[in-house]
């Protein structure tokens, strides 16, 4: 059996790896972007000089041949579902028995005048990075449109080369659609501390052409004109499925898939950023364009293709990011606008660059989520607490089990507990200290 995978990102590659573990099927991974899989999340580090492109490749180049995974560079223009054939822009074609679509995302553009000029680009692909590199030479000023994670990464990239940056954010606080107000305010402070010009409540109205088809300034909704040599469009992404427009594969915003990640056509599956769950799990979105879900879907689809049907179950939500120098981790249910039935315990370091938020259900006293800034927590421990609906007081007393900071880092467990004590008029004390032996015992219990 020949399994073709379109997309050599984390989703497609994980699928291929697991199919190889489970079977002897012939596997071909197709991509138009690069010859080998690289970590998209590390694009910024290439630009900043922390790593070279080859350092971002998770597997050495011999890996593919050794595991009998064929790689093909090319752009699939059309999927012939009846003939089970892929037609390439380059003119050739490839037949398959089963097909996995793992084509990722593409940056949003909202019809701004000038959005297709030169010196205007999103940041998603390796080619986007090359464009950024090309126009950075002698660049005096960059403007970034959109207040998400990638926007800030882009700002950090320019900042690392001492290129002044302005970020236009529609909301009145950074990423406050996702982050609770305190954490969002912390990000604002971090951006400003790094001398990046953060303009909140400001939107792009148009990009100005310098007469040579290149951007030379932006004009904002408030009428401000900002001269710049580069405009970064980072107002989110959407599934990269344009090439499927004329096929009979059913799509909405993404490629629609069932619980087994199969599309409306049997033998065709879709995973990662490009797919949309017909019936998302409660509390989850239909499209979750992140690294981790892509990886889980890759694993799941491999089982389904290799005759071990299993439904996609991403488990308890988790994610992480880094805002300049502040690391961020989240486990479980933490929302920008707290639902009525939830209560937060929020601790913030006096210096304002670290915080721990623990959310619990007021009535049941059960922990529901953790939001960490500048502090590392242990994934498995948090997950187990949430899954087992652990009592908030148990969590607080054992908080040391969750801490994942390096040795000798200051302990804040009692300070967090004191906030709860104050809220509840109690006098609880921290019980479990940080120790691998105790963590191990807890996880095995």
């Amino acid at each position, binding site marked *: 059996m020949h399994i073709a995978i379109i997309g050599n990102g984390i989703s497609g590659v994980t699928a291929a790896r697991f199919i190889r573990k489970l079977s002897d099927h012939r596997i071909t991974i197709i991509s138009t972007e690069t010859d080998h899989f690289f970590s998209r999340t590390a694009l910024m580090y290439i630009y900043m000089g922390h*790593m*070279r492109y080859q350092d971002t490749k998770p597997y050495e180049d011999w890996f593919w041949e050794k595991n009998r995974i064929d790689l093909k560079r090319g752009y699939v223009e059309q999927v012939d579902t009846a003939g089970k054939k892929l037609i390439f822009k380059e003119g050739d074609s490839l037949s398959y028995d089963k097909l996995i679509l793992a084509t990722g995302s593409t940056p949003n553009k909202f019809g701004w005048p000038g959005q297709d000029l030169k010196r205007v680009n999103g940041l998603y692909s390796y080619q986007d990075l090359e464009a950024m590199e090309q126009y950075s030479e002698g660049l005096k000023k960059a403007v970034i449109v959109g207040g998400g994670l990638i926007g800030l990464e882009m700002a950090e990239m320019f900042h690392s080369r001492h290129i002044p940056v302005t970020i236009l954010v529609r909301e009145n606080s950074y990423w406050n659609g996702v982050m609770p107000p305190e954490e969002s305010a912390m990000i604002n402070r971090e951006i400003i501390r790094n001398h990046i010009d953060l303009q909140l409540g400001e939107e792009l109205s148009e990009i100005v052409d310098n007469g040579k088809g290149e951007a030379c300034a932006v004009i904002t909704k408030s009428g401000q004109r900002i001269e710049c040599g580069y405009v970064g469009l980072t107002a989110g992404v959407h599934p990269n499925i344009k090439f499927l427009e004329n096929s009979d594969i059913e799509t909405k915003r993404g490629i629609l898939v069932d619980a087994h990640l199969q599309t409306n056509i049997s033998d065709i599956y879709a995973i990662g950023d490009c797919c949309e769950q017909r019936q998302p799990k409660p509390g989850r979105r239909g499209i979750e364009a992140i690294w981790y879900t892509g990886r*889980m879907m890759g694993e799941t689809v491999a089982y389904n293709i290799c005759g071990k049907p299993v439904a996609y179950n991403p488990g308890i939500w988790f994610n992480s990011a*880094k805002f300049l*120098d502040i690391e961020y981790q989240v486990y479980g249910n933490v929302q920008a606008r707290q639902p009525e039935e939830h209560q937060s315990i929020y601790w913030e370091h006096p210096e304002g660059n670290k915080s721990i938020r623990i959310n619990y259900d007021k009535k049941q006293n059960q922990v529901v989520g953790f939001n960490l800034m500048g502090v590392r927590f242990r994934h498995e421990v948090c997950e187990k607490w949430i899954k087992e609906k652990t009592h908030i007081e148990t969590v607080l007393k054992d908080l040391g089990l969750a801490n994942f900071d390096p040795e000798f*880092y*200051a302990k804040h467990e009692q300070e967090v507990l004191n906030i709860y004590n104050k809220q509840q008029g109690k006098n609880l004390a921290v019980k479990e200290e940080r120790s*691998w032996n105790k963590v191990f015992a807890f996880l095995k219990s």
Partner: protein
Amino acid sequence: MSQVQKSMSLANPAPPFTDLIQKIASAVGGVGLLFMVIALSGAGAIQNSVWLYSALGLIMVGTVVYSWRAYMTKPEGIKNNGVWFASLSSKGLWGWVLGIVLTGFYVVLYWFPQYLGLGGEDAANTGLVAFFDPLSRVLSGNPASQWFVYGTLYTVAILSFGIKFILKYRHNKYQVIRTISVMFFQLGFAFLIPEIMQKLQYPYYSFTNMWPLNYYFFYDWNLTTLLGAGNVGLFMLLFGLAMIFIISPTLTYFYGKRWYCSWVCGCGGLAETAGDPFRHLSDKSLKAWKIERWMIHGVLVFVTLMTVAVIYSYYTGDRNVLITKPIAIGLIVLLGAFVIAIVQANKKEINLSKDKLSMLISGIVGVIILLAIIAYFTGNFVIDGGLLRSWYGFAIGSAFSGVVGVGFYPLMGSRVWCRFGCPMAALLGLQQKFFSRFRITTNGGQCISCGNCSTYCEMGIDVRAYAQKGQNIVRASCVGCGICAAVCPRGVLKLENGSVDLHNKTTELKAIHIAEGDIRIL
């Protein structure tokens, strides 16, 4: 897409610009170096203590001020901007220049010290060595030797770049404490104490330098010196033995080899401080790992053989070690019994993973086969202890640890010696892998495979290969520097000690994250 910017800066590679204070600081440090070059050229005018102390002071002040400007003017955090663009830290022109200069310095130091101005039996020092006489007289009462010059510069490097490292990682308490520790042990135990001991008429002895790194510990001259130095000498001898057989195994059991390699050891100390700008140059490929294992364990076997031969000849007075047929057969039987014992013990208690067990056994079986061949074909086998010793001293003691070990920093990363050549690292590494509470744990499914950890691992460990599978890192070579954990942008790695899972620190393979119970295995 690589953009090469020319920069000579060691402290902060490729800043788009250095400020005025940094330029002045570089000049100040440069003047200090210049004094030494002038002294080397034989100019008598600057041969006195004022010039020496000014030179050392200027170098330190220059480095510290430069790094202060580089790091303290920016918010704390990981500062690796431009590392791969700067010529010095990316094997560019300046990297090669520095590599060649350092290598040349070591060649002169080891084999042509007369060019540094080392005096003979009754000739006084001249040049650079004479320049250091005043300090040497203060500390040990003797004129300087080329080793004293080297030791002083080495210590100055660890101290200045140690401060730089602390400024760079000031947000990370593990890094700060660890660096203070290497600075302390270098200055006190490796540099000052041995010198002062000499002044007090005791043998030269560094408490932190143990066999097999200190390969001459069991040499006849060393044993004779120690045994001839009364109670203090005896204490040194016993302490040295306790280090090898009690202190080191105990500490390694509790904390892994890091207690030595990145907290105490001078070679490690230089690599962590002065070598920090080059740590990412280590080769991460699987091939490099294979070469590494052969080389480092080869050196360990070499040093062990040599030491046995040396001790043997110390007792017999004969430099040739004779392995007769009965001895060879006796050894084979002994080793065979050992293999059986391990296999038995493994069934009941220690539970080694399959690959660990096979690695261990194949090693021992290899030695058995070797012995058998020798016993069968040659009857008696003669090991020339003296020859082994001189070859070890030349090839490993000097050429590898010095010339290649430090000279190749800008080309192969800061831990070339520690990774490929150090027998101490090999020994501690075996213990770390098989019998230590230390490992690096990974944080569930949080890894984004970005590669920062692997890139900045000076030991060339492909940390990401484990992290992205959610697997703990249990590698013999890991020196526990903690930099992988520091640079990880997603908080995935943590250096940890624990005894509960001593012989199963890494599960064979772990699912990344998928909830269905029946497919948890990857």
